[in-house]
């Protein structure tokens, strides 16, 4: 059974289509491994019993024309799943059972996949280490007491640890790409408007995007093809012609121009990150593409901008958690007291911190100095990319300024935690697609990732570049199964 969980999504689909494996075989194998992996704390809620029922039902009358025929899949607990508890990693939603399904998960089930369970994440996707979850931190399959990154930490841990063949996460400032980089897997943040936000617990609405996380680029392309769709239920969903990303995937990137932005060479960046970047540049050249030095002059302002825009949007979005309509309610002496106690007891420290920042920057007398200023700088950051894309087809950067850190190492210093997202945040601010691929290891043997940033709606191009580089890099993730007895 164990070799089933080692197979890629593409292989599993092929084996089910060729009837070499049944959905029941595959589902059983992933459930079995998930059950042995409790130490990772990757799941918040499992749905194993009904997953097995669904697999058996699929096998009785298999529809092999689907893209994900009978494939079991766990998803981040930020996606509303009908009749299955959805917590967003928060105490305030610990009893919330949605009566509707998110569009991206609906797309996945419509293609034949089967829900395994809901994966741990930072509370309301606010965090870079999965340590803010009400349900406890997640262990990385890479090493004991190592963070898997965040906020899609349970998702990254589950894919790298082979608890699910692929998964979906969400990315507001790097929450797919940073954990993908920390755990040696592939993660794609699509163009804003590519995947519907309907039914995803909102964090910062102008930045949030759902995206695939997988063992390799081809699997990532296939899952992206399934989740990307125009959806009238999300007013910012964009109606554009979507590719058959997995079918059109090619490693021919000859003649492509790849920008190397000098501003991403930040102070204090470890030498191994710089070396990795240089190796990436060489791989690009080996693939027959050309690298060009470019400038994105406002890069260093991206993180401060993000820490105004994202908390501002979060403070409005999270106003809905008031103990009235759903979720946790604390006892109060009167209505206002009930609101204040519910939110004080229901939200964790990081979420409260961000709501406070957001409330402050939007409050009377400070709006112009902070929020309006940030929106203007956001424009400058987007202009930087627009200017760069006159000369290049895509941009190559490191995914993170360091490899994964130990649990507890950065929890006392919010700013040092925020600095993790220094290379990923500009992409969200500009609404662009970005993909992180595993590209090497540091001295401790921990994975390091490279990020390829594309033009808006140009997912195919960055997937192709990632696919070509993946072949050259030939990365092998070092998974020792340390958590399995």
């Amino acid at each position: 059974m164990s070799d089933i969980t080692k197979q890629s999504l593409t292989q599993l689909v092929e084996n089910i289509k060729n009837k070499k494996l049944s959905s029941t075989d595959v589902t059983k194998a992933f459930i079995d491994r998930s059950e042995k992996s409790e130490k990772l704390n990757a799941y918040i809620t499992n749905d194993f019993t009904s997953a097995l029922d669904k697999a058996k039902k699929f096998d009785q009358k298999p529809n092999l024309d689907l893209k994900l025929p009978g494939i079991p899949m766990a998803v981040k607990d930020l996606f509303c799943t009908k009749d299955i508890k959805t917590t967003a990693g928060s105490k305030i939603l610990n009893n919330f059972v949605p009566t509707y399904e998110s569009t991206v998960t609906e797309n996945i089930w419509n293609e034949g996949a089967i829900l395994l369970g809901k994966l741990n994440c930072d509370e309301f996707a606010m965090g870079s280490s999965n340590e803010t979850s009400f349900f406890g931190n997640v262990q990385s399959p890479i090493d004991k007491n190592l963070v898997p990154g965040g906020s899609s930490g349970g998702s990254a841990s589950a894919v790298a640890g082979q608890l699910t063949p692929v998964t979906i996460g969400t990315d507001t400032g790097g929450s797919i790409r940073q954990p993908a980089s920390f755990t040696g897997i592939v993660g794609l943040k699509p163009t804003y408007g590519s995947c519907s936000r309907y039914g995803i617990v909102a964090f910062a609405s102008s930045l949030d995007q759902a995206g695939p996380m997988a063992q390799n680029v081809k699997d990532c392309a296939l899952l992206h093809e399934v989740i990307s769709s125009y959806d009238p239920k999300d007013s910012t969903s964009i109606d554009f012609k979507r590719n058959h990303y997995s079918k059109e995937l090619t490693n021919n990137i000859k003649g492509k121009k790849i920008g190397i932005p000098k501003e991403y060479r930040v102070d204090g960046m470890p030498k191994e990150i710089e070396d990795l970047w240089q190796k990436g540049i060489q791989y690009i050249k080996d693939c027959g593409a050309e690298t060009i030095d470019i400038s994105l002059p406002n890069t260093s302002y991206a993180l401060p901008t993000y820490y105004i825009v994202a908390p501002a949007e979060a403070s409005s979005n999270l106003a809905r958690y008031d103990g009235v309509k759903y979720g946790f309610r604390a006892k109060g002496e009167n209505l206002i007291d009930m609101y204040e106690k519910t939110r004080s007891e229901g939200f964790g420290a990081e979420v409260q911190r961000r709501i406070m920042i957001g409330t402050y920057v939007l409050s009377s007398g400070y709006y112009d100095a902070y929020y309006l200023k940030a929106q203007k700088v956001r424009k400058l950051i987007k202009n930087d990319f627009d200017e760069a894309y006159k000369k290049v087809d895509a941009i190559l950067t490191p995914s993170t300024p360091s490899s994964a850190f130990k649990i507890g190492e950065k929890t006392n210093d919010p700013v040092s935690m925020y600095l993790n997202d220094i290379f990923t945040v500009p992409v969200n601010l500009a609404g662009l697609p970005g993909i992180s691929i595993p590209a090497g290891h540091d001295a401790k043997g921990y994975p390091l990732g490279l990020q390829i940033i594309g033009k808006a709606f140009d997912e195919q191009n960055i997937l192709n570049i990632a696919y070509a580089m993946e072949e050259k890099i030939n990365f092998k993730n070092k998974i020792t199964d340390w958590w399995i007895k």
Partner: protein
Amino acid sequence: MSIDLKTIKHISKLARISVDEQRAEKLAGDLNSIFDFIEKLNELKTDNIEPLTSIAETTLKLRSDEVKSKDIREQIIKNSPQDNEDYFVVPKVIE
């Protein structure tokens, strides 16, 4: 700039999150270090820059105004923290 305890209390009122003295002090420390970091934006002159208000440069689609979901009262009430078949219930607001 510096965010003092009085400001923390004011923001916590606006945000409807009750905060005791100990937490208020911790929050003041955290927010000050975060705002020190944010102040970097003041290096930039942005007087003539148009703010970016929408990242997706498309016009919103119109749709006809029709009811799509009917008889979903039960679904809406289902997750209510206090059981009641017909309404959301809150602490008494009128004496």
